[in-house]
């Protein structure tokens, strides 16, 4: 369905998968907040109008309605943008979705700076952190269209709430359709011995690019796609760092509270080693082209590479 290398916004894969699921399972219902054309939930609405509810520009209401619907036994998908679900409707998520542990799957587009041109109001760069601190929440960001499809399907079989973050803009397809995905299980994409790069979402393909360049410079990096940051796949991290002794984390998010924090917290308690986090550092981004923004905010392939060099250097000093 999705060809390796094609650039596809993961929101598109989400919309397609919803329809696929809708055909198989009549217990799936979808709520939308007047951006269905953009989140791609409208595709589901077109085929299943009776199971598609557009609540209007009212995300708090949307979230609480979803909780009520889930209490009636439905598998409920909530579509909107990441900023609105995680911030405007944050309390509804915490108190009425997570605390009662109902089956609401919050699938949100415009994660990170992927709505590049839209500017800060529409770029969610704190959402993973907010969601990660809520007890019982599962937090996911797939790296491409193939893994989006697999993880959205897995979400329907998962007991309890999920926050799944999608991209507005295209990201290259990096998986073939044979790869299998499990919520809470990272994917070892490339083996290496000198350093471990752990990436999430749209940054996974950037990590792969960085690895290619690094290998020409004599550094063999192991690359892990940590699509689920909560629950964190601790064993894949431990297995890798025991071999490499250093980590670079890469995320389209503030370095606080997201993937970098999750990995640092785990390693700090269990296996302290040099670590470098790539992501936004106490700053908002802005409007502009995606690649230019990555450069300006030090999240580009070059920045991943220099992060790796830093860690390798610190490893040597440690010895």
């Amino acid at each position: 369905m999705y060809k390796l290398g094609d650039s596809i916004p993961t929101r598109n894969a989400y919309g397609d998968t919803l329809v696929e699921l809708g055909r198989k399972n009549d217990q799936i219902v979808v709520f939308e907040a007047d951006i269905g054309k953009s989140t791609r939930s409208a595709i589901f609405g077109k085929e299943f109008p009776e199971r598609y509810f557009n609540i209007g520009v009212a995300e708090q209401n949307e979230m609480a309605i979803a909780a009520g619907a889930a209490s009636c036994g439905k598998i409920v998908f909530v579509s909107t943008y990441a900023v609105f679900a995680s911030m405007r409707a944050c309390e509804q998520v915490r108190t009425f979705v997570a605390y009662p542990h109902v089956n609401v799957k919050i699938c949100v587009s415009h994660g990170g700076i992927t709505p590049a041109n839209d500017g800060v109001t529409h770029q969610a760069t704190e959402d993973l952190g907010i969601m990660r601190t809520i007890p019982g929440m599962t937090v996911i960001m797939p790296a491409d269209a193939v893994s989006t499809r697999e993880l959205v399907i897995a979400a329907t079989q998962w007991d309890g709430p999920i926050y799944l973050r999608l991209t507005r803009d295209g990201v290259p397809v990096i998986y073939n359709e044979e790869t299998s995905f499990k919520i809470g299980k990272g994917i070892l994409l490339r083996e290496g011995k000198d350093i471990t790069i752990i990436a999430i979402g749209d940054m996974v393909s950037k990590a792969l690019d960085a690895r290619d360049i690094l290998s020409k410079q004599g550094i063999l990096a192991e690359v892990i796609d940590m699509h689920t940051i909560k629950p964190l796949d601790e064993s894949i991290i431990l297995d890798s760092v025991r071999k490499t002794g250093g980590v670079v984390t890469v995320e389209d998010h503030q370095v606080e509270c997201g993937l970098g924090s999750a990995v640092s917290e785990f390693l700090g308690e269990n296996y302290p080693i040099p670590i470098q986090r790539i992501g936004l550092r106490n700053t908002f981004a802005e409007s502009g082209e995606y690649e230019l923004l990555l450069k300006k905010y030090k999240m580009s392939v070059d920045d991943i590479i220099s992060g790796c060099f830093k860690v390798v250097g610190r490893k040597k000093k440690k010895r």
Partner: protein
Amino acid sequence: MVDTINKNLVSFLEEKATELRINILKMIHAAQSGHPGGALSAAEIITTLYCHEMRINLDNQRDPDRDRFILSKGHACPVLYSVLAMKGFFPIEELATLRKINSRLQGHPDMKKTPGVDFTTGSLGNGLSIGIGMALMGKLDKKDFRVYVMLGCGELDEGIVWEAFMAGTKFKLDNLVVIIDYNKLQLDGDNDEVMPLEPIVDKLEAFNWNVIRTNGHDFNQIIKAFAKARETHNKPTVIVADTIKGKGVSFMENKVDWHGLAPDDEQLKIALEEIRGS
């Protein structure tokens, strides 16, 4: 049927409401914390719902076909716990454990802990949205259960309530009834001081709801209002129930200080005497 309400029914409900009030005060006294004012103002409405209006199933508490009730003003939960115990969802003695560690009776309603609670509430303004979710699913599954949501008047300050009013109209949820416990007091003072709601009926009508104004302590009127709501099709109904905060206990009535205050031994004694005497 609307016009001829059985006198026996009314006196039966009156008896039950008195029992509720007694239990509310005892519970809050035992916990030495809680919200008596808003629990007492809702006693007649809650009694009517659980002892007359709603279809509940004690043998199968989570019966998918049961009617649902959401106490959006979750802090008033002593009134809900009292009625649930009275109906047999859990032993009456358990009421004494309110707000104590390991109790099933949390400071605000918790669907995972307390039998008979249909949804967790306490953070104000959200109950109506949750009720809309349930009513929508009832329609989708072609079930005939009804959903009842009680809002406190202070909650109407929350924007999400108005989002929900809009959505209720859009989806024509005639299986949904909202009751506003309009006691005109909120934590910091009366509505008019904090955030005025009048003209409340005009507001609700402008959001295209079927609006019924009623005396929330008069069983005849409450029963009729619910019956009228049942007869209304294609739009949801909101019952604006004029009530008195702290109703039944003279020194609590219309006193904002009793929003969240527990009576001491002496106050409890006087209060119970007043309620039993009336």
